[in-house]
């Protein structure tokens, strides 16, 4: 695989998933994205105000991450899974208590009022 192929493969494919007004400040909502469930967390006023992670909780198998509570643990922004309360990094998707668990993450941004997620 040469370097130009890699560059082409990583060209982000931004897709509008909802509007800013659909977001809930300091909390999460979920969007349907081509068969994927993506949880969007919105922290207005923060350097990076938007995060997108998988909605499926690997421990329970239920689609609930978007309904978790946002927090900060040792400087790491996290979401706590609502059923068993394990914490996932919003940035990397890693589970703080159990490195075996992780959530998929997506690049996400605000383009004006539109909320865009990058498909890979």
């Amino acid at each position, binding site marked *: 695989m040469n370097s130009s192929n890699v560059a082409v493969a990583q060209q982000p494919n931004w897709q509008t*998933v*909802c509007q800013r007004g*659909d977001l*809930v*400040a*300091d*909390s999460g*909502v*979920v*969007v*349907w994205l081509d068969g994927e*469930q993506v949880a969007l967390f919105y*922290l207005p*006023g*923060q350097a990076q105000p938007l995060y997108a992670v*998988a909605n*499926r909780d*690997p*421990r*329970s*198998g*239920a*689609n*609930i991450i978007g*309904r*978790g*509570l*946002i*927090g*900060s*643990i*040792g400087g790491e*922004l*996290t979401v*706590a899974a*609502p*059923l*068993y*309360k394990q*914490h996932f990094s919003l940035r990397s*998707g890693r589970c703080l*208590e159990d*490195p*075996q*668990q*992780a*959530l*998929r993450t997506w690049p996400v941004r605000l383009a004006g009022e539109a909320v865009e997620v990058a498909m890979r």
Partner: protein
Amino acid sequence: MQATANGGQLQRLVIVGNGMVGHHCVEQLVERGALARFEVRVFGEERQRAYDRVHLSEYFAGSDSEALAMCEADFYDRHGVHLHLGEGVLEIDRERCEVVTAEGRYGYDQLVLATGSYPFVPPVEGSSGTSRLVYRTLDDLDAIRAAASDSRRGVVVGGGLLGLEAANALKSLGLEAHVVEFAPRLMPVQLDSEGGAALKAQIEALGVGVHVSRATQSISTGSEYRYRMNFDGGEYLETDLIVFSAGIRAQDALGRACGLEIGARGGVAIDHDCRSSDPQIFAIGECASWNGSVFGLVAPGYSMARNLAALLLGETSTPFTGADMSTKLKLLGVDVGSIGDAHGATPGARSYRFIDEANAAYRRLVVDASGKHVLGAVLVGDNSYYDTLLQYCQNGIALPADPATLILPQGGGAPALGADALPDTATICSCHNVSKGAVCAAIDSGCSDLAAVKSCTKAASGCGGCAALLKQVFEHELTARGVTVDKSLCEHFGYTRQELYGLVRVEGIRTFNELLKRYGKGHVGCDICKPAVGSILASCWNQPIMDAALVPLQDTNDTFMANMQKNGTYSVVPRIPGGEITPDKLIVIGQVAKKYDLYTKITGGQRIDLFGAQLHELPLIWGELIAAGFETGHAYGKSTRTVKSCVGSTWCRYGVQDSVAMALRLEDRYKGLRSPHKLKFAVSGCTRECAEAQSKDIGVIATDKGWNLYVCGNGGMRPRHAELFATDLDDDSLIRMIDRVLMFYIRTADKLQRTSVWREGLEGGLDYLKAVILDDSLQLGSELEAQMQHVVDQYECEWANALNDPEKLKRFRTFVNDQRADPDVHFVREREQRRPVAALHLIPTVEEAV
């Protein structure tokens, strides 16, 4: 004679006496199926059916006669036993085999005497009326209560077991109680002189006067009190009433009159089959004399009753061969135990003694001449040694090399509350089977914070239900190791919940961000501090939890005002106050459940739980429920859950108060109250306690005069009985006291701390809580009541509020960009309802997930 089912004749069995032993005999007969062969007739002199005489003093501590009853009111009827109460037997006609009462004559084939005993009152000049009370029956107690109503001081003559019980009764009637004992020590039969001295010291410390080696010569008119008791040697003691409890005498009058053989020291003489000198007549309990002895304890009476029941039915019976008089009691709150040869009367017996003068505790171990076996023991102040010593004594177990170790203080012996009471083997986390010992080991191996203990032992990482207990054990163990415990709420607040509560209230702070900015660190908070602060804000100001600034604080259940279940769907619990519901409302619940295909289950709190609702269905479901007049049940919140009630005096033949009306009043007042943890209430309409109020945070039990209030109980993982807090309150006083207790709890409890754990951690314990709430020692009473009233005034149904606000409803979308339901939620049908499919592919590896 009636005929039996198989054509035979029913034998007529007459039992004279309906005390504890007589009743036990009937129970034994019923259990063994005797009613198929006997027509059983029971005569009781007293108006009440058999009651628990051993706990008689509880009659003054809030129990009524029904609470002391040995059986349900319909026990005799139900089993076809003829019970003649208030109909004493006057005479036994042995020739015609009949007993004679004021009402008539009744024939018998077999006759059982269970007439018990009567109190011995020594002849004392001048004693009569309220200077000659006795303590044996409920009528006696009513007489004592009547005499006490205009009295300040009461004296019990007799420092034995019953005398001390009587002194307890006087004390609970609010009198200054004294005990006068003829012997040089208390409980002369069971205790030696050191034991008696220790007991005396303990009882005096409780404010009861003890006068030993005093013989009352006469009673005359007093100068400061009603009577003056004149003792040998010129001393005297003045008092308003005198209760004699100087021993019992067998009630053998019927036997004497009809010529039965009588024991040397009284009592109908019996053989080891409990048979008297007339083969058709038996005697059991305290009216019987076996081998010249009358047994004044209930246990030997019970074993006689059992043996006799077996014998009458022709079963193999164990002959009565005397009784072990070992006994373990709590007298006036003081532990007293006596085993076997407590006095060391056996030739060659030697003793070990442990005396703790500081705590007035005493233990004596009596061993045989060889030093190998226990003969007896005396315990005062701590009965935790009793069971082991009794095992040694009764089973002839060989003593350890140093027998003294059996009575020396040991860490595990003392009862205590809270984390330190748990033995090392106690399971803390049942999901991962982590013992307290394992938690201690983790701390010793260097785990210095709770998170480290959790990840090292896995405790509290299963269902999480043990988190509070784990924290308690952890902090207790750290303190025990001399380490200062950091009680900061979390990394964002260097304050305890109690301190934050004070800041919020004093500074009038209304949002999380304001509190974080002024007293916290960072800009975000976490899932520990956000719900804790959310709860504090709600407890103080009671704003709707769905308000924009509050939403991000709530844990998911509060955010969506429903309880998330394992597959991410919710259960819905409408409030059904007091468990009372009209048929129409019941139908609505059924219709809603049917429409949305919700799994329906009755809860333990007398409500109905509807499972399987998806996020977007919640507003639809609540719209229908609210239209039918329902309100939210707050099953999702750390808040008032239910007020369970029995049906009470409106329907129940035993109810003494309208428990449903009180439950409705309580539930209406406290619904929506947010607190450090969930709150459960119950109201029982009588002392039978059908609502199980003593297992609740706030338990209310009706009395014939009002309500008894119990506080700080819970069921669950570590059940704890609520403690009696106040008695005979009227309706309004009850509410005020509950207002105060709850607000004081909300102010001072740690986060996620149930009332039980809070109460156990209160320095000064129940007495302190009573002082603060009942005596208003901190002068907080009116403030606490006002704060509660504010919360009550702010109440509104959160669901009704949310349904009226399109902004709030926006949150109830499974997907904000798509109408579909969560396609991964699957159900199967089981027992005609749906339930979640068992999840198959859980916890994928990192590689799968990324």
